[in-house]
């Protein structure tokens, strides 16, 4: 698989400019360390996250279509999104524009009124940051570049909802060996293992953190997150590795809220997979934004000889 995706259009999305700056920083730093080139989408817009679809799903399709048309204008056939929400919405737009006539019509209408080219499905492939590393560098490539092995670090890999569901918007998944599984995803596990980490058997890889209602129904989110965290601890994990800014911030926020509101203190640390891989490539904690996380992982990283 290696050789693909050496140069991709990069769609950071709003979260990576806001609460998830450490994900943006570590994604860029990791790409650089691995010799991969990313060019940020010029003048992109928000994908609509999980909210706009509840006002009207076709506007959400348009928002992603505009971003895809920018990638096309810039001459890219691949756009990489590290955020599950952005990734999911670009994928869903691709599917809806292909299969739903009325989504297509609304996109044509809004694109022409907004004064830009209407995106036609099939022009740009959307990939997640996991696909990007896995299929450009791969496990073997990573192993060669490890300077500071993650050996001794026990990791629960958490993928959340939007990376695998609903199945129909990810036609490339569940295609057997080498492809991602929607039931038991493993791309992040594969990469972290290549960097020396010990992945624990974690049964809640694709369980929900309640991110859509992190603020509007905090009690539900806190209970869901507490379950994710306590299960990770019961599985022996030191760290929960994440690949979605909404999940990541939700875990950090509700870990603190569970302690304050429910009196349930937990100790597992939450780090982006790009931060963990960056550390393994010999980057400093600062270079991958460990200090920008709400979850303070520095004492653990020092203990494990990674900082």
């Amino acid at each position, binding site marked *: 698989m290696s050789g693909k995706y050496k140069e991709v259009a990069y769609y950071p999305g709003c*979260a990576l400019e806001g609460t998830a700056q450490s994900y943006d920083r570590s994604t860029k730093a990791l790409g650089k360390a691995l010799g991969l080139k990313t060019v940020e989408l010029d003048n992109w817009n928000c994908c609509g996250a*999980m909210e706009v*679809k*509840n006002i009207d799903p076709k506007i959400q399709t348009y928002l992603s279509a505009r971003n895809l048309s920018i990638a096309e204008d810039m001459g890219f056939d691949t756009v990489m999104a590290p955020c599950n929400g952005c990734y999911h919405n670009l994928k869903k737009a691709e599917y809806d524009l292909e299969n739903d006539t009325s989504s297509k019509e609304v996109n044509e209408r809004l694109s022409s009124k907004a004064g830009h080219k209407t995106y036609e499905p099939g022009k740009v492939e959307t990939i997640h940051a996991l696909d990007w590393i896995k299929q450009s560098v791969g496990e073997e490539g990573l192993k060669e570049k490890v300077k500071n092995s993650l050996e001794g670090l026990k990791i629960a890999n958490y993928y959340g909802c939007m990376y695998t569901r609903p199945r129909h918007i990810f036609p490339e998944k569940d295609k057997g060996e080498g492809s991602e599984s929607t039931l038991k995803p493993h791309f992040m596990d594969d990469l972290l293992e290549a960097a020396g980490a010990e992945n624990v058997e974690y049964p809640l890889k694709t*369980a929900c953190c309640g991110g859509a209602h992190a*603020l509007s*129904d905090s009690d539900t989110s806190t209970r869901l997150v507490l379950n994710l965290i306590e299960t990770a601890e019961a599985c022996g994990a030191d760290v929960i590795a994440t690949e979605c800014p909404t999940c990541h911030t939700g875990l950090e926020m509700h870990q603190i809220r569970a302690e*304050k*509101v429910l009196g349930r203190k937990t100790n597992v640390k939450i780090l982006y997979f790009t931060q963990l891989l960056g550390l393994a490539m010999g980057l400093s904690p600062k270079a991958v934004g460990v200090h920008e996380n709400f979850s303070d992982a520095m004492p653990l990283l020092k203990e494990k000889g990674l900082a």
Partner: protein
Amino acid sequence: MPIHEKSLIRPENLIEQEELVIDGIDVSGHWSTFIKPRAVTDYNETMQDEIEALAGAENINRCWQCGSCTNACTVNALNPDFNPRYWIYLIRLGMEEELLIDKDIIWQCVSCNKCTYACPRDVNPEGVMKATAHWLELKGHTEKKPSMIFDEEFSQQIFDTGKIEDGLVLRKFFAKTGQKLTQSWLVTMVVGLIRRLPITMLTRMGLSIVFRPRTRGWGKARDAINEYVHEKEAENRKNLGLDTTENGQ
């Protein structure tokens, strides 16, 4: 006759006679539990059509009642009353009164899409939940729920500027729902970060108030989206037999 599965029946629908003798035989208490007989006559015959017309619920008529959605549901695991299969059943039969018993929890769907993943009939139960919550609000059965306030605030920022600034979303949502920014957990989060990152954090917070992130040249997209949203709103209200001039038209 004793009913062993009482947990399946709402307490208000159970009748237990403390002292009852029939044909000389004492059948009091446990041996004399009945399910209240009832005849449903107030079917709402348009409810399914109305909900089906809202975004997300287009495929509700495909449901086979297999229950895969409820079985997979994240929220059901926390609250057994949260039962998508049952609500779809009620909507399809037009049993509005029964549906209204759960009107204040339907909005709690977290959109994890486990139901959609599990559904063998492409019903898209997640979409049905959103459409039903929307229907309840439009019909005046519920007030605007926190998730809808959040969705509207969030979406309006995108429609206006093309982007989101998460600090602003949080501040505005808390203001609209009367929550304090000084809740202990929030303070702990921010203080922890400021201690490690004083200058960057403060600069970021300061800058985000002055320079809101926005997409350049967004004006035409903004107008096109707002025009479409208003059209859709009017169409939704018309489908529900509501006055289309209301709601900021």
